[in-house]
């Protein structure tokens, strides 16, 4: 029922885009959108129709900074049990990776959900469990929901959650690339709704469409953006109406607000982006790994960690180059031997490009 497959409709959409005779560049910020585009050959199809769609900083694992990775590595080496999602484990840091530490005997666990990490803490009271919490607004409420329930005191969170709208603004303010429209991430939007994107259309006159993840969803989103541009409009439209309500998920928003407050943070490839990260409120300081293990983390608190040598993940994340333009792509950097996070994560542009160009 929730699968949209209709070849005739797809052909009609593409033919209407072609008829518009445009040369436009859109950006999306979601690895799942990129996967749908490439898996179905929509990127090429749309490019031939005058619409180029590229991925911006839409991969939570990829935008996690080298410093944050170093923090988790320090905690692992200090004997904490680290739990995180699979992709995060494999991202190389400046000195090692969680996967490497695991092979060296440190305690690193892959979990599917933050709840698995809490269960570990309940089961192993003798261990200190640190959950590396990455993810945008889709994932942040799951962390908040768990902390509201007051998990055991041997559980804590290294919070690396980030917010999408401030990153969109940062890209526009940096002015490095031309963006004619944004395709907004459907599942982030199930939580935040449409309103948080309003200022982008109002202040920057950029049309936006919230889109789902079926091929038809992305084709429709591209068509809706083209249509707005033809009509001289710049507004937030919702293509993913079966899942996204304009006000979002208010319960999830409320829970997030109770537990987190916004903070200025760096993103990989970006300078500090104001109010784009989340930090635990003081009430939950007991669960904040950065406060709880301040003494262990102090040794890297002032250190600067740079990108791996030759890695252009930053440029890929800002949409300046395609993965194939990176000299390391497919040569020094592959999914089996990744140099940067964009080749590690299944949401990363380089990983997706590599997977589908091999087929």
């Amino acid at each position, binding site marked *: *029922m*929730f699968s*949209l497959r*209709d070849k005739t*409709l797809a052909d*009609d*959409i593409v033919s*209407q885009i072609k008829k518009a005779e445009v040369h436009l560049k859109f950006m999306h910020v*979601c*690895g*799942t959108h990129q996967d749908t585009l490439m898996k179905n050959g929509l990127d090429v199809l749309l490019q031939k129709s005058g619409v180029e769609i590229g991925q911006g900083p839409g*991969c*939570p*694992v990829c935008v996690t900074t080298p410093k944050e990775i170093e923090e988790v590595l320090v905690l692992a080496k200090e004997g904490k049990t680290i739990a995180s*999602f699979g*992709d995060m484990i494999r991202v190389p840091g400046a000195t090692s990776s969680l996967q490497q530490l695991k092979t060296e005997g440190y305690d690193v666990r892959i979990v*599917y*959900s*933050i*709840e*698995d990490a809490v269960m570990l803490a309940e089961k192993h009271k003798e261990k200190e469990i640190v959950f590396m919490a*990455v*993810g*945008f607004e*889709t*994932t942040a*409420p*799951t962390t908040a*929901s768990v902390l509201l329930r007051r998990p055991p005191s041997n559980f804590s969170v290294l919070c690396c959650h980030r917010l999408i709208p401030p990153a969109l603004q940062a890209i526009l303010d940096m002015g490095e690339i031309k963006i004619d429209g944004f395709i907004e*991430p459907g*599942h*982030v939007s*199930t*939580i935040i709704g449409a309103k948080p994107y309003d200022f982008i259309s109002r202040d920057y006159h950029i049309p936006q469409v919230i889109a789902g993840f079926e091929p*038809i969803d992305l084709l*429709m989103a591209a*068509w*809706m953006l083209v*249509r707005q541009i033809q009509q001289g409009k710049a507004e937030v439209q919702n293509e993913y*109406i*079966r*899942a*996204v*309500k304009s006000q979002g*998920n208010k*319960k*999830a928003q409320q*829970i997030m607000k109770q537990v987190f407050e916004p903070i200025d943070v760096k993103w990989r490839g970006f300078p500090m982006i104001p109010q784009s990260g989340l930090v635990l409120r003081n009430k939950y300081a007991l669960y904040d790994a950065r406060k709880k293990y301040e003494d262990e983390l102090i040794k890297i608190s002032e250190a600067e960690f740079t990108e791996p040598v030759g890695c252009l993940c930053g440029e890929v994340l800002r949409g300046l180059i395609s993965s194939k333009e990176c000299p390391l792509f497919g040569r020094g950097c592959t999914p089996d031997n990744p140099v940067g996070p964009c080749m590690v*994560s299944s*949401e990363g542009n380089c990983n997706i490009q590599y997977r589908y160009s091999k087929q």
Partner: protein
Amino acid sequence: MCLAIPGKIVEIDKKQHTATVDYGSGTKRKANVSLVEVKIGDYVLVHAGFAIQVLDEKEAQETLALFREMLSLQEE
């Protein structure tokens, strides 16, 4: 990362804030439902073990028809 899978709620444990979600083809898993208000029979999107939104069945059924209508209005 932001991947979410649709499934149908077949059982709810209100005390534990969990529900059994049927993803079709015999795949059933427990999901946390503390972020949504659900009842048995609802379709939800599940992300990282949590239901993050209730899907609108009516909107889903009418989506393709709506898209066709939007395109035909453009052609007129």
